[in-house]
């Protein structure tokens, strides 16, 4: 009976649950799915992390390459995030060139990196005007079960914190590039941006960390990115208008979640170092 209702009247089905302050998967409205972080499992990459938010799974690998800096910013390296949504993670994606959703997500991650100033691009400089690091951050979504944006940001930050770059010097005389794999430096990650997404259901329920079903039924989505206690992005692309108090609630929740996630990354990273 419940399943029939779910199929034919998915909104009504959800409404019945939400009215009782619970979601069909047993979570409270303000409760995130269990978050698993696995750091450094890909040894071929300079930094890597696998993140699971419930079923949503994103793996991020960072490959470092040497590149020439731009003429107008001779000291800045590059960080190139790229989100891949392959047909493997959900039937809604087609193989081939990145679709709109993938492009939007990639740009979202780029914006988060820029706004949070999480990595100082000048740290990636080797020789000013000649040689800099280019970090190719590929995030591959393995299972698309809603709220991929949060998972992407979490995996990227975890992977960045895990990134070790070999020492590179340029021989003054021969101009040859010498790489010393024995001496590696951890990439300095200045801040920990954490993204938290909320879905608005029926104009007044605000639920955190929505699953794919919740995302499709939602009348609006709001994503808040925080670093420590500061905000670095509030992104609400249309949808149900929100009252100030509702936004405030979201921000508070996001800050709370930020502490939780930061702790998760740090302690997991710590366990690896020991």
């Amino acid at each position, binding site marked *: 009976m419940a399943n029939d209702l779910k199929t034919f009247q998915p909104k009504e089905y959800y409404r019945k649950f939400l009215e009782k302050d619970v979601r069909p998967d047993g979570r409270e409205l303000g409760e995130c799915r269990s978050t698993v972080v696995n750091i450094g499992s890909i040894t071929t990459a300079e930094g890597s992390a696998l993140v699971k938010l419930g079923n949503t799974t994103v793996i991020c690998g960072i490959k470092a390459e040497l590149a020439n800096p731009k003429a107008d910013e001779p000291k800045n390296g590059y960080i190139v995030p790229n989100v891949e949504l392959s047909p493997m993670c959900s039937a809604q994606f087609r193989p081939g060139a990145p679709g709109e959703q993938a*492009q*939007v997500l990639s740009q979202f991650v780029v914006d988060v990196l820029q706004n949070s100033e999480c990595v100082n691009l000048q740290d990636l400089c080797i020789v000013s005007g000649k040689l800099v690091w280019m970090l190719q951050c590929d995030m591959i979504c393995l299972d698309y079960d809603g709220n991929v944006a949060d998972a992407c940001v979490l995996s990227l930050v975890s992977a960045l914190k895990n990134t070790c770059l070999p020492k590179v010097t340029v021989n003054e005389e021969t101009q040859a590039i010498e790489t010393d794999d024995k001496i590696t430096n951890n990439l300095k990650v200045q801040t920990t941006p954490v993204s938290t997404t909320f879905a608005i259901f029926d104009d007044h329920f605000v639920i955190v960390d929505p699953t794919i079903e919740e995302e499709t039924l939602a009348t609006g989505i709001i994503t808040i990115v925080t670093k420590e*206690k500061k905000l670095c992005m509030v992104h609400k*692309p249309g949808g149900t*208008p929100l009252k100030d108090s509702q*936004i405030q609630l979201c921000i508070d929740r996001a800050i709370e979640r930020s502490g939780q996630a930061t702790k998760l990354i740090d302690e997991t990273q710590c366990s690896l170092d020991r």
Partner: protein
Amino acid sequence: MEVDRTSHELRPMTCELGHLSRSDGSATLTQGDTTVITSMYGPGDVRISKEIIDKATVEVTYRPKIGLPKCSDKLKERLIRNTCETVILSGLHPRTGIDIILQEMQNSGSFLSCCINSACLALLDASIPLKYLIAAVTCCISDKGEITLDPDLKQEKKSVAILTFVFDSKDFNVVTVSTSGSFSNEQFQSCLMACREASKHVITFYRESMLKKLSKSV
């Protein structure tokens, strides 16, 4: 080209409605020097693959002035589309398409809000049934923490954070937020308040523009 203003002022706004003959609705909006042209078609036929059975398909195309659209333009496009979709009573026109096309003419700051406002004017010009009007206002926070409404390009460059809010005309609740740079919660709140106050003037501007358009003489 910018006149000096104190930080709590909106730049002069000028709009022209229905000047593109081929589209069903069109608007040029200038806010200060920032200029955007929006045209829209519909409700009209839609490709079968994009047809939605119980409402109209809203599509937004944004064209930058230089070069081909980039990834960041896609995000902008998505933001504008979702915002427009929110206000259009799309349930009234099932299985049709509403196309909105925006063209950058001049970016002199507060660009996103100009885009959204001109889109709203174009929708008004085409007499598309809307739930309410939307008004977008951008503000920026300087390194000293001062808030400037409707900043121009110079002010935007100097600022640490730029926030754009879109409000509905009914309760002035927040429809869309887009931010760049980092800021504190308190700053966010005060920007929100300031922009809300300013958005009322934008709505007044819409109203006057439509009144003038429907009048018999200048």
